[in-house]
């Protein structure tokens, strides 16, 4: 199946999008950006491919007269088991890496019991994984690293409660291992995982009678070949992407085009990401006509909130909801990140409420964005807000109010998939850029390159 790929290598996450020849989105993939950019990019891309296959699988299952009746439950089980397979594969790799390390560690007598302890921990983590990866399990992280780390930490804390030396030792082994495991991709074995998932699923009583159809549809989706005709990379780390220059686009252009695709009447885009804030103007075709980015000062970006969260000893996702509770917003003068911290402490010591201060801080941050928007040429209808901060309700509320006050009524678009805006724009450029079609990106080569690292 012909497709086009867009990859957005951001400072915290790497995103990939597959689109088909009709510019329809096939699938999305996301992973945490890591020190190895090649791997992050490969993993995101493979996740997007898997996501594309599942999208097709879903279409086929729903279209199948026999399977239609159980489609929802079946798909949920297949996906859960698939993810479990992939997770277990990585867990195995992690176990092996830790044990290899432990072989050396145990030369010292005091650490002779370490391999046994590790065996024990990982065995328990495998058992737990089965529970975590059930169709209706409570939300879990998308990233192996997060899940493995919290699981491992819980066990080590219990095991080495009174032995800080042991605790440090085990954590050190783990830290070394996870880095190694993360530097490889475990997303590429679709065939292997889906077959395993299929075996697991058909064994379940409720799907017994559909065994033949399930086997057929899974092997059909497995056999499907994706033929990427062109790949375009973008994002903060795009210079590090293993692409030739023709296949790299600035995130400004990609954001503009991606936002245009999601909301075709978009004329102004505001993106507030972790590292920077962008104000972009686009024309009726989604082509960027003007843009402004924040300067050296970080006051207007997501990092500002991160800094405030640290100051307040809160999670960054808790800030917005708390600020929404405010009835009396405190005016924060300092748009400087450093001064905002001092001002924050001073306000707290004066007895101001946390929610009121937070409401003021959100407004201060949005004010910075307003000035970037003004620099770029103002806010035209429709106005699309993207980036991580677009998920923060307090920031959205402050933005709406200021836009209304300064520019009048504007339609404000926020997509739940806004994190993929840049990758989507890149995929569209991949599709539209004829010259680029010549230079296909060979992911297998990339894999080889990575493996030889």
């Amino acid at each position: 199946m012909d497709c086009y790929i867009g990859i957005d290598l951001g400072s915290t996450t790497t995103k990939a999008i597959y689109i088909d020849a009709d510019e329809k989105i096939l699938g999305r993939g996301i992973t945490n950006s890591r020190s190895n950019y090649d791997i992050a990019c490969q993993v995101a891309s493979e996740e997007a491919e898997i996501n594309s296959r599942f999208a097709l699988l879903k279409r086929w299952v729903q279209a199948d007269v026999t399977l239609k009746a159980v489609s929802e439950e079946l798909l949920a089980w297949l996906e859960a088991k698939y993810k479990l397979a992939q997770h277990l594969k990585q867990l195995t790799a992690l176990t092996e890496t830790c044990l290899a390390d432990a072989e050396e560690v145990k030369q010292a007598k005091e650490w002779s019991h370490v391999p046994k302890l590790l065996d024990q921990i990982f065995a328990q983590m495998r058992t737990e994984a089965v529970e975590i990866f059930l169709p209706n399990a409570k939300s879990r992280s998308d990233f192996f690293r997060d899940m493995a780390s919290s699981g491992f930490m819980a066990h080590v804390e219990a095991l080495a409660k009174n032995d800080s030396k042991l605790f440090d030792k085990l954590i050190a082994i783990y830290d070394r291992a996870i880095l190694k495991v993360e530097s490889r991709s475990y997303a590429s074995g679709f065939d292997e995982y889906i077959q395993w998932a299929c075996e697991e699923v058909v064994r379940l009583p409720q799907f017994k009678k559909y065994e033949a159809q399930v086997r057929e549809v899974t092997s059909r989706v497995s056999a499907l070949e994706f033929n990427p005709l062109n790949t375009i990379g973008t994002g903060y780390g795009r210079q590090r992407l293993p692409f030739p220059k023709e296949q790299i686009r600035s995130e400004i252009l990609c954001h503009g085009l991606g936002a245009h695709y999601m909301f075709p009447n978009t004329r102004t885009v505001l993106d507030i990401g972790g590292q920077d804030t962008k104000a972009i103007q686009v024309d009726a075709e989604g082509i960027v006509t003007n843009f402004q980015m924040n300067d050296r000062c970080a006051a207007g970006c997501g990092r500002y909130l991160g800094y405030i969260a640290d100051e307040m000893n809160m999670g960054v996702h808790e800030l917005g909801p708390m600020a929404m509770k405010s009835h009396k917003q405190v005016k924060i003068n300092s748009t400087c990140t450093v001064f905002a911290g001092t001002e924050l402490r001073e306000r707290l010591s004066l007895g101001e409420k946390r929610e009121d201060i937070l409401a003021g801080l959100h407004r201060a941050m949005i004010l910075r964005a307003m000035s970037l928007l003004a620099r770029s040429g103002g806010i035209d209808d429709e106005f699309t807000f993207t980036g991580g901060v677009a998920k923060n309700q307090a920031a959205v509320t402050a933005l709406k109010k200021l836009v209304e006050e300064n520019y009048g009524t504007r339609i404000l678009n926020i997509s739940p998939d806004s994190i993929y805006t840049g990758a989507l724009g890149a995929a569209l450029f991949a599709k539209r850029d004829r010259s680029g079609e010549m230079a296909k990106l060979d992911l297998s080569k990339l894999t080889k390159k990575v493996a030889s690292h």
Partner: protein
Amino acid sequence: MSEVNDKSVEKEESMLLQKQMIADHFKALSKAKENNKKVVYTFVPGNLNELIWALDMLPVHPEINALQSAMRKKSGGYILEAEKAGHSEDVCTYVKCDIGMMRRGNVGPTGDPLPEPDLLLLSYTGCFTFMKWFELLKEEYNCPVVMLHVPYQAEGKVTPQMRDYVVKQLKEVVIPKMEEISGNKLDLDRLGTFLESSGRAENDLVAVWESAKNKPSPIDAYFGGVYYIGPIFSAFRGLPEAEIYYQTLRREVEERVRLGLGPVTPDGVMKQEKYRLVVEGPPNWTSFREFWKMFYDEGAVVVGSTYTKVGGYYSEGFRHSGKYPLESLAEYCLGCYTNHNLSDRVGILEKYIKDYDADGFVINSIKSCNSFSAGQLMMLRELENRTGRAGGFIESDLVDPRYFSAANIKNRLESYFQMVEAKRGGRRAPESTL
């Protein structure tokens, strides 16, 4: 893929000439005391070079020392030295670099110590910081200062009263002081001869600027341009050496036009001219090569720049002349780029964009230099409105390596070039987006 060929760069004759001139000048400076020559420190904008030569004194330009220090990667240390001595992180880094350099022995770009000034000639033209700079140097050197206050062209014109004010200062304050320090009497005819020579060199320089109207442009009027202004902005305006330099340069450029060649870059001759740009603002000196590379790697050529007009507004018609020497000097001082109001500055940029058929313009906003920078965001918008061409905005500093973020600037420039390309694609070849 680089847009330039790999041929090792041949040094052109004009480059070699300039190198020699600079070496000779610094040699003369290092021997100033033994040859009993008096040394005048003065600024580039509004400098009175012909007057300095006519009184047989030797000029030193502290801004040039600062930028040379930056290109030799020494400015960072000098700036820290000045900040340790109580200078704020907020203020001009040219000043701090100069003060730091002095405190560390005042060694010039050729490695020889610079002579201390016998006179600080404060041509207060288009930059407030100049005044503070020489007040600071006065404290350090404990030597006389003479102030030449050049009024600002707030209304976009030079009035007779403004010119008279400058001429009167020259006659009654500046020249007497220089005569006193140098021990020489000013011969107006001799001054006139230097001024006439300046005028001739200026003619050739303007021809070089205007060559950028060709496609491809044979010169880069910003990154290459800063080399072209070297002799005329510094010690050599008024001297036969400058005349020879500009004749040579002009010949070389005309030859490039005949051969249809693009500009010479540090990586060789640029092959394809993809973007023609006008640039506002001084360059960054600490990463000058890297900064330039971000342009020529993308096939971007600067066809017009305002920074190369800070030491003289020659492309707008001004020439030094021996006929009315003091009036000529006054007109020169009053006309330097940053002595023009914002509306005039927008006007000149607009003119360059149109006359040189530029695809757009880039503003390099310099932290140190409020004279340039304050108001540039408004200039950006005004210019976009007037020309309909794309404007790019980047930020850096003159000589403070802490304020050059290569990744940030490259990111913005790339986005800018791609925006120009996408706009052009939309305009000229819509089918390419199918």
